[in-house]
């Protein structure tokens, strides 16, 4: 079954828009998420297809409400718990 990411050909979304002089990142944390993902894939913690799959598995409401790098951060944390690198408690900081 198709997931929430697969919206090609669907109407009702706002135009994608284009930001003039768009910076690579809109906040420092986004750059950290980007670097963390590169490092984890490079170290073999998971692969790029598992990463895309983890984004697509987000609950639809969360997916639609999340920004681009929020989706990345979600996928990284989900995969690190699933792969046994971190515990859910370590991720939540409890």
């Amino acid at each position, binding site marked *: 079954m198709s997931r929430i990411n697969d919206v090609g050909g669907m109407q009702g979304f706002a135009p994608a828009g284009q930001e003039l002089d768009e910076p690579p990142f809109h906040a420092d944390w986004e750059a950290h998420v980007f670097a963390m993902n590169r490092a984890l894939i490079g170290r073999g913690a998971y692969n790029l*297809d598992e990463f*895309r799959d983890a984004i697509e598995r987000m609950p639809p409401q969360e997916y639609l409400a999340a920004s681009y790098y929020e989706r990345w951060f979600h996928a990284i944390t989900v995969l690190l718990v699933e792969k046994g690198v971190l515990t859910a408690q370590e991720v939540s900081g409890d």
Partner: protein
Amino acid sequence: MTERFRAGDRVLTSRADPLHHTRLPRYARGATGTVVELEGRYPLPDDRSRGLPAAPEAVYAVRFSAAELFGAGDHQVTLALWESYLRPFPGRGQANE
């Protein structure tokens, strides 16, 4: 390894609607297109995303008419599609489809 398709071949995309990750978008399923060129050989994301063994396989640029995909429009849409998503068109027993 040899490729199953060549530039100019007509192909039909899979109608399958898998539960897992795939790079064949919903709007391009069950559609007829034309192979433009071989783009390279890469592991099938459907398998690699599930931790399954995935040997590199042919990935093609496949061109579709917008009307074939969306029922309207006079532009063309080109997608990078893995060989597993494609079969020859017309295939056996469907020459009259």
